[in-house]
């Protein structure tokens, strides 16, 4: 089989596929957040992006601080238990330093938008929002009649990013992406996009992928670029590879309170570094070592293999 490889480097993948003014989705629900790819977008100075992300945590705060993003499509504007997103708050509350457009849904609204986008549906019905102010805040949340005689139901529109960027545990060079642990809405977010870039902890042999085809969340044909980028999810985590750097999440709350300190952080950790390897090298070694996890193996299941003699036997 002479299929082409999709493996490239992160700089090339972002340079080729992410352009000013695009709608860019970076997904990962607490897990496998594509921080390295987000930082490369910052480093390359993209502007006027519409950022789609259910939970715009500190990765979104960093992209917005860097001036890459003018519009945010999201459902939860905080960094989990680690507090506020101060750059988002400055912009939304005071237009400081500039206004940020926000298009807001609930979590399930965003999930259904990705499914509608992936399946090219004009809308997706959802049993939320009756009595809420959300449809007043966001006129894209609309109502339709039930043709079977039930009550009206709210619907959300499809979401079709120009580019979706994800991080995963592993992929083969053809682009088959395998993930485990929390999967969020990543499959739908990938299929809904024109272009898909996936950074991975490891590029593995095709035989590894093909030994466990149910683990493939995104098949090769939906993927445009694979980038091997170990540690690419830090300070979020990759199940089975390294744990979340909770301390950094808390630190960002303090760093981002002041816009100049946030910019200085970006200077030191993004602009002044060529990429993720240098970023990991710059981390305090005990800090990175402290995120290592012990083993907990899934165990193997048998997919079976037909014995030639049984083929067509009757």
């Amino acid at each position: 089989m002479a299929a082409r490889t999709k493996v490239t480097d992160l700089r090339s993948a972002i340079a080729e596929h992410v352009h000013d003014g695009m709608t860019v989705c970076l997904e990962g629900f607490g897990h496998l957040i594509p921080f390295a790819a987000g930082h490369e977008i910052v480093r390359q100075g993209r502007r006027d992006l519409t950022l789609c992300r259910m939970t715009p945590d500190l990765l979104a705060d960093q992209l917005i601080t860097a001036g890459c993003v003018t519009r945010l499509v999201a459902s939860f504007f905080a960094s989990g238990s680690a507090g506020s997103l101060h750059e988002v708050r400055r912009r939304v509350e005071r237009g400081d330093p500039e206004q940020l457009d926000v298009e807001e849904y609930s979590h399930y609204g965003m999930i259904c938008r990705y499914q509608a986008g992936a399946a090219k549906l004009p809308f997706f019905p959802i049993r939320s929002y009756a009595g809420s102010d959300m449809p007043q805040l966001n006129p894209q949340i609309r109502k339709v009649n039930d043709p079977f005689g039930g009550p009206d139901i709210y619907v959300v529109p499809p979401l079709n990013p120009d580019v979706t960027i994800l991080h995963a545990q592993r992929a083969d060079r053809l682009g088959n992406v395998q993930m485990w642990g929390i999967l969020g809405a990543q499959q739908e977010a990938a299929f809904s996009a024109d272009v898909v870039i996936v950074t991975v902890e490891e590029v593995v042999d095709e035989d590894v992928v093909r030994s466990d085809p149910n683990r493939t969340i995104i098949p090769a044909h939906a993927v445009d670029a694979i980038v091997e980028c170990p540690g690419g999810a830090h300070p979020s985590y990759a199940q089975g590879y390294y744990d979340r750097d909770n301390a950094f999440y808390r630190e960002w709350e303090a760093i981002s309170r002041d816009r100049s300190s946030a910019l200085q952080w970006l200077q030191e950790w993004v602009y002044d570094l060529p990429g993720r390897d240098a970023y990991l090298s710059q981390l305090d070694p005990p800090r990175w070592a402290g995120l290592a996890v012990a083993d907990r193996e899934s165990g193997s299941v048998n997919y079976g293999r037909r014995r030639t003699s049984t083929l067509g036997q009757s």
Partner: protein
Amino acid sequence: MNQARQSPVSDVAPSSSEFLAVVAARELRDKGRVFAGVGLPTLAVDLARRTVNPNIELVYESGVCGAHPAGLAEGIADSVLVSGAESVLTMQALFGYVLQGGSIDVGFLGAAQVDRWGSLNTSFIGDWRRPTVRLPGAGGAAEIVPNAGECIVIMRRHDRGSLPSQLDFCTSPSPVRAYAEDPRMVPPGHGVSTVITPMAVLRRPDKFGELVVTDIHPGLTVSDVKAATAWDVMIADSVRETPRPSWEDVRLLREEIDTVRLYLR
């Protein structure tokens, strides 16, 4: 703290995290499948599992069902919730099939504002077009309130701003508000059944009724609670003093559950 030398009943302040978490845990005594949010709900479900309800089932919006965390989860997408869990579903399956499908008994939430009918604001303080404070927004709450069997809300504050006569913004509506929009769009769930604040416990036994103060924390009076509530809040005839946490509950929280005081403040 040396438990042996003390009364079994603790003297932690009613406004403390420990007090709120213990009161919340007790509400879970006979509950089944709980959709647990981050923060105080995490403490409360963990405490409930160790005390009043060992069979409580924990479901997280990240897709984890049947979690068996080996340590305190720092967030609803923590890796400790995944390792050793019974299942990890996609979020479409979790929100669509488990929650909207009707399998959650109790949703466990925080909010910045709650109104007399149990509608919640987690989005904005002030005018939403130019808010004074941009809050986290809907997240999963807009799905949990209508679809869970009932919801328990923990408030970090009890004052006329957080229990206002009119919400600044309604993120997650009560059945009363859904009915007002369209009587046929009433959600399957009861909505908010219980609100736990630093002053009191309020309950809403009727799906279309108002919150009623049923428990007032030690040292506080009906007048205190009324003064701190922006609407003319109803007081139950049977109103009682909230039972204090035991020292054993407090010890579990401090020495076994949240040893690093992540959520305890």
